[in-house]
């Protein structure tokens, strides 16, 4: 016991960071194991974007002619964005579920890094997003999508997406911490994610939208991200520089800088 007392007085910054990293790894592993134990969840969360691919590719696609690009190449970057955004909703749902089941009470009583409960969740969700994005890439190729730039540029596009989804995950962490249960977390998430995803350049050019919507759709971060990854993946529109990519990185980092501390603050103030 005296050991414990002496050690604890030596707690310092390097130590806290070391434990934050170690505990985050432990929590990430736990969340990833959970995903593999419920393969249905992964299956259906992948099925949804696949259905969107098929829907837009074969049902709506022919009605949406866009100059200088095949619709499938226009579509797939948008689908990626939609996929990672919808995927990040599960961060809030998973967290609300943990809170509901009482396991977080146990974590709070442990000498672990508190923040790791949240980082372990957002990082696991990013890892899961990587798997889903890989599958969607395969599906995209199967329905005729082709990279118009280089593989490196395509991968940069994916990294941009993952960074953004990580930022959005922190937003849904706050939703998860505010919701009384996982069902409510889910219901609360869609009104947030829907307008951002659909009032964007993900599926159709914003020029086709009414003026009042167009302004929102042009400047909101999802459109910025879609434009940036579209440029990186299929070089569209060909004649502009990719300023959107820089803009998107700023959006993501800015969102993380605000949402992460907010989430941690909210979590540390146990009810």
């Amino acid at each position, binding site marked *: 016991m005296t050991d414990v007392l002496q050690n*604890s007085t030596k*707690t310092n910054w390097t130590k806290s960071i070391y434990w934050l990293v170690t*505990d985050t790894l432990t929590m990430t592993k*736990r969340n990833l*194991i*959970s995903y593999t134990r419920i393969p249905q969840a992964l299956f259906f969360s992948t099925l949804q974007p696949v259905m969107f691919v098929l829907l837009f590719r074969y049902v709506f696609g022919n009605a949406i002619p866009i100059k200088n690009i095949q619709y499938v190449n226009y579509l797939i970057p948008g689908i990626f964005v939609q996929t990672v955004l919808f995927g990040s909703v599960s961060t809030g749902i998973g967290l609300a579920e943990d809170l509901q089941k009482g*396991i977080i009470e146990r974590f709070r*009583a442990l000498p672990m890094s508190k923040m790791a409960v949240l980082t372990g969740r957002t990082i696991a969700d990013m890892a899961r997003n990587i798997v889903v994005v890989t599958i969607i890439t395969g599906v995209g190729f199967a329905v005729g999508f082709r990279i118009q730039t280089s593989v490196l540029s395509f991968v940069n596009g994916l990294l941009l997406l993952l960074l953004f989804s990580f930022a959005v995950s922190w937003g849904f962490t706050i939703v998860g911490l505010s919701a009384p249960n996982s069902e409510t977390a889910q219901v609360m998430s869609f009104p947030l994610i829907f307008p951002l995803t659909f009032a964007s350049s993900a599926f159709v050019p914003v020029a086709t939208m009414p003026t009042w919507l167009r302004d929102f759709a042009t400047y909101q971060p999802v459109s910025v991200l879609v434009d940036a990854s579209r440029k990186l993946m299929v070089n569209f529109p060909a004649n502009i520089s990719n300023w959107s990519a820089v803009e998107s990185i700023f959006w993501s980092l800015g969102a993380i800088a605000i949402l992460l501390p907010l989430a941690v603050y909210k979590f540390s103030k146990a009810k």
Partner: protein
Amino acid sequence: MNEIAIEVNDLSKTYPKSKVKALDGVSFQVKTGKVLGLLGPNGAGKTTIVRILTTIIKQDSGSAKIFGLDLASRTHAIKQLIGLAGQYAAVDENLTGFENLTMISRLNHMNKVAAKSKALELLEKFDLIAAKDRTLKTYSGGMRRRLDLAASLVNNPAILFLDEPTTGLDPQSRLMLWDSIQNLVKSGTTVLLTTQYLEEADRLADTIIVIDHGRLIANGTPTDLKKRFGSSVISITLRNAEATDSATRLLSANFPNKLLSEDNTLKVISQDGPKLTLDVLRIIDANNIEIVGLNVSEPSLDDVFLTLTGQTIQEN
């Protein structure tokens, strides 16, 4: 080693969301190596006490010390000295028993090798070794509770907090868990146990505190508590509600504050059993009231609780 394991002074807590005053000035002490039974009905504030003492939430006022360490300033040190098995088995359904215990050990900052061997040791100890690679979804309620208790022991805590450890368990699993708890106590662990079951407190606790509506309403050893409220209880059962009414009127006039009623059974508590029995029967007989049952016994903790709060402990 400190003589006093837990020291609680005038603890109060109001939950901001519900505005419920869950604790209203509670004080008590637990000596090292002893078992404190925290007894009270649903909503009394038991879990709130446990959550404060295990550093999960903060009190609004008052203070608490664990082995002389102040709860507010020595949180990290205290976390390393305590174990918690919460009210709901707080384990991960999707992980196996082994994975759960390894995870908790790692989060207690044990290295990988130590975490794994600790997990196996505890699975062995709690008779779960055969189920170690099954996910918890396949565990019975009793097995989950045992795993939950095992998880609270990975850091060899000096103080163990058990929040309603046997609620919802079948009698056999309950006995098994009681056994495990008694073994821990034998090995020197201090235990704070909350329960709604009087039998459980009676059986496991050295000292009992009774709380209701966030206030401490009684404090003592099980024997003390029973004695304080009389050494004998005489229960009479009456034929019908009408007879019960007249008997209640007569007896409450003669034994104010000593009368309890449940359906058609009336109980009178007294220090002097034989004399009391005669007195009660004389009054009943003189008024030609018919009784269908008579029983003289030692008071149970249920009787004590009934006297204190006017309600049976499991009423809500």
